[in-house]
């Protein structure tokens, strides 16, 4: 199964999860996702997702000037973003439990 296809549906919640405890800039978020095991995540997909979550009010953003190079744009989670994350986390747990049962054939 193509992992990038699976990723499309859950990228929002994954991005929210990695900025939940600590703000991050674009590539920082990519790196955290890859470190967490989502090695196939595309840079631009993450940046686009950050932008969309920001537009939806789930994230805030601020620019940090850099002395040695271009400035960085940081993203942090908002209360709305936390609410969204909680709801999606529950949904995911339910969904993954269902899929586990379905795929392993273990009755509930």
């Amino acid at each position: 199964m193509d992992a990038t296809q699976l990723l499309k549906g859950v990228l929002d919640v994954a991005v929210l999860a990695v900025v939940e405890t600590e703000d991050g800039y674009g590539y920082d978020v990519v790196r955290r996702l890859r470190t967490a095991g989502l090695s196939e995540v595309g840079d631009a997909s993450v940046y686009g997702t950050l932008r969309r979550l920001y537009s939806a009010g789930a994230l805030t953003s601020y620019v940090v000037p850099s002395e040695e190079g271009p400035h960085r744009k940081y993203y942090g989670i908002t209360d709305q973003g936390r609410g969204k994350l909680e709801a999606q986390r529950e949904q995911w747990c339910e969904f993954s439990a269902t899929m586990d049962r379905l795929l392993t054939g273990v009755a509930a």
Partner: protein
Amino acid sequence: MNTSILPDTTAYAAAVRAELADLPADEVEDLTDGLEADLAEAWADSDGKPLVDAQEYAQELRTAAGLPPARPRGSTLHQWYERGRMKVESWRSAIRRNPAGATTLDFIASLQPAWWVARGLAAYWPITAIFIGFVTPIPTGLLTLVLAAALVIGSIWVGKRNWGPAMKFLILAGNVFAIFVLILALDYVKYNNRIYEQYVDDEIPMYGLALNGNEITNIFAYDENGALIPQVQLFDQDGKAITTSDPGGNGCLTWVVDPSNANFNESCPTAGVWMPSKLETGAFVWNIFPMKMAETEYEGDTEPLVGAEPVDAAAPFVKVPAIGGVEKSDGTKPDEKANKDETKEPQKP
């Protein structure tokens, strides 16, 4: 982080922004703010090589941000052409999935040379109309023949070559114009044929009654004794009412004969319109003869004057010879027998 080993992040970021150029400026700014820094870091992690090209990168950025896909680049004309071409291409592949559809498409494609010829001829008509000043539907003279042949050859040449998008768009526009001209031409031919048919109709009446090509306008019946029957209802072998010429038609109420003029010796001072007769059922019918006529205001008028009484038409004969009874056949042909009877002349009024 060392940015000096990655000198092209600016160029790459600029290329990405160019791909997003159709979006509002602030949207592009929000999407690509800090892109250079992110790129530098990403490339540093991947040995300094961009993983995807700028176009693909921009597309991914758009999709993830929930923005519409990029519009095709190039001139507006080119965009229209490309959009139309993609649409046609998608229809074509949809039709091709069906074997019958594929056969039909192949057949239509095989007609393409015929279309090129038709298109060349379609160009011929407007060109003769504009430059020669008149439309000759079919080229007959040397000049028009050469012109038509040149246009057909030109059309085939244009059709066989593989053109660029701008020229293809022009050809498409030309084809639409050619279809328009061909429809007009067909309509013109149809119109001319209609006129011709009408002309033929007028020459040989296909309705009413005629005697040796002359229109019968009224019928006078005489009984066995040779006396005029005041009113008679006529029907044909199928029970259809026999009517003369055009029911409701008009004619002359009173003829005046001028013996001094040999050619145009009849004039019509009083015009009239044929009037139907009434049955006991109350219905008006046109098969009761002799028909009566009512005066009209002028010749050609189909409405009788208010209060005009239908008057009897003048009978051609006051009396005709009585019928002499039935004879048994003596073996002579019926027409020879009729000729012998011509001695019995009817009495003129």
